[in-house]
């Protein structure tokens, strides 16, 4: 696998996983290549996306928010209306179908905010597959509603206590499980990260978001939007939203990453701003690390953005400057969470609230009569308890 071979986005991407996983990754790659071309697979996937997930998700004009912010017209791509409440289900269904095709009876996943764990547990229940979800012990606490739902769906949650006990450790543990059970198990990676072919598969499965948004907007407005915005954790909803627009050179693209508490190492998850090229969880990408090449713990108010790496395609899009990635602090995200809830009647996920903050600035800069689409990656039910706790702390 050389620099210009599949699986690389510029210098980023590739396959840097333990040898024990190589066979499974090659099998996954060749299976996926076949399925991608198969009409039957496409039909089956479309069937579930329509009849189970509830696609297409609406593209909603946010009238009140537009007025309130006083800039560009705001449109929302409503991934929060999907079954299980986030974009994660698009990927989980697709990968579960791939797993089924490969004859794997057991699926595992890592989860931060719990949305990917929930999506995996859901498809596990629907397809009747044994499901195990790795979740950092800290995240089991702060995203307890999702943890409970995952168990109710019949999946097993294995809390991970190593390190910071968040998404990074959950990912490592899922990789270890996969190494042990690789012949019976498919690892449904939850974001556009990991060794090739995961970043490509996840991107393809999520690109339904951008494709729909682009054609919905075009149909309603007979043109393309001026800008699009999405939040970036590992970067799956963002790459899904961005992909259909990458070639539209006049559409400005923005990614929102977690600025956390501030710029000090350990206080944020702003990989694209502060990361350096490195190798983590099977891929070459930008990573927050120290002088010794040790990974620095990430922080974000939103469990789903709390990851020190990022999908390799985003690292590439950042390097080529096709996408403008900006940091949003915990405080700014929290404010947007409340603002959007009150003004628009939609409680967004804390992850998505980061995208709203960037969108507000961009909308102001663009000015009136311009159009901006935000990928509303998920709804905020899961965050209500945590937000109340944070507001309590703030008022002290």
């Amino acid at each position: 696998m050389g620099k210009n071979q599949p699986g690389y986005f510029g210098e980023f991407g590739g396959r840097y996983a333990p040898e024990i996983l190589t066979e499974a990754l090659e099998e996954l790659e060749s299976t996926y290549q076949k399925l991608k071309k198969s009409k039957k697979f496409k039909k089956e996937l479309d069937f579930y996306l329509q009849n189970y997930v509830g696609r297409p998700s609406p593209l909603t004009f946010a009238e009140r928010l537009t007025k309130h912010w006083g800039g560009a017209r705001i449109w929302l791509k409503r991934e929060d209306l999907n079954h299980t409440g986030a974009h994660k289900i698009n990927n989980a269904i697709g990968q579960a179908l791939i797993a089924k095709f490969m004859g794997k009876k057991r699926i595992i996943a890592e989860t931060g905010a719990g949305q990917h764990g929930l999506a995996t547990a859901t498809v596990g229940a629907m397809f009747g597959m044994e499901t195990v979800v790795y979740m950092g012990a800290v995240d089991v606490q702060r995203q307890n509603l999702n943890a409970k739902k995952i168990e109710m769906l019949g999946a097993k949650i294995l809390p991970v206590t190593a390190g910071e006990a968040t998404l990074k450790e959950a990912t490592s543990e899922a990789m270890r499980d996969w190494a042990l059970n690789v012949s019976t198990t498919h690892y449904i990676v939850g974001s556009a990260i990991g060794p090739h072919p995961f970043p490509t598969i996840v991107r393809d499965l999520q690109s339904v978001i951008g494709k729909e948004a682009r054609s919905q907007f075009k149909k309603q407005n007979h043109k393309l939007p001026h800008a699009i915005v999405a939040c970036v954790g590992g970067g799956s909803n963002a790459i899904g939203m961005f992909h259909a627009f990458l070639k539209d050179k006049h559409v400005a693209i923005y990614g929102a990453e977690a600025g956390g508490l501030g710029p000090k190492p350990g206080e944020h998850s702003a990989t694209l701003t502060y990361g350096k090229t490195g190798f983590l969880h099977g891929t070459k990408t930008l990573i927050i690390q120290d002088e010794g090449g040790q990974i620095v713990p990430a922080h974000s108010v939103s469990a789903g953005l709390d990851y020190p790496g990022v999908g390799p395609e985003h690292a590439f899009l950042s390097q080529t400057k096709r996408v403008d990635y900006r940091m949003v602090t915990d405080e700014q995200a929290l404010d947007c969470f409340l603002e959007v809830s009150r003004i628009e009647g939609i409680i967004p996920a804390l992850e998505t609230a980061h995208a709203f903050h960037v969108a507000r600035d961009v909308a102001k800069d663009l000015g009136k009569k311009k159009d901006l689409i935000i990928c509303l990656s998920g709804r905020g039910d899961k965050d209500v308890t945590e937000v109340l706790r944070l507001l309590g702390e703030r008022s002290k």
Partner: protein
Amino acid sequence: MSKIKDLFESGRIKSAFIPYFTLGDPNYNDSIEFGKTILDHGADILELGIPFSDPVADGPVIQRAVARSLKNQFSFDEIFRVTKEIHHHKKETPLVYLTYFNPIYHCGIHSFLDRAKEAGVVGLVIPDLPFDTKESETLFQELRKRDMDLIHLVTPASTKKRIEALKRTSTGFIYYVTSFGVTGERREFSVDLKERIRFLKDTIQLPICAGFGISTPEQASQISGYADGIIIGSAIQRIIEENGQDFPKAKQTLAEYIAKIRASIP
């Protein structure tokens, strides 16, 4: 000739004993003593772990060792200092590093290799750097220039095609991963272990050393009957974990264990 090749071709040993432990656990200075103790009691090659925060190929025992090591301020200066001290204690025993690729890359491949060689290291094992990557090619070329070895891992899942392909860039020995999963002590090994090792020997003209899961003298004795070497990590690390606070006891237990394993190998 590389030092490892020399060892295997010298006829001095029938099967090599290759212990592993993580540098810096519980602290860098104790590491020096642990290294010396292991060398004194019978290591043929010594594998030194450079800690990495996210060791995805390692089981709980080594994960905890790495976490303890990283509680000390990690620095390459310390790593090379400690390595040098261990090397000076017994210069004829080849030292190899086991680490993940990120720290090496971050240090800079040239600078890392120059300093590692200067510290007495003659080979590298990198569990997350597959041979068919550009970085592995580069590393291999640079190692060759310095007469150092790149030791590849082969697993029960590696196909014939891959094994054929990795021949070109393997030197020293092959690290045969005896079982699926991560490092850690195990009671049983796959039934075809012997056949796999024989097949590997026939395919790759290099010594085949088996690791992942070996801990008892009985296992060591049995597997060294057909492998060119055995690698033990977790069992050693457990001794350090259980006795690390009581340094004399840790040293003593380690010495006894190493001697026992060495004695069980032909």
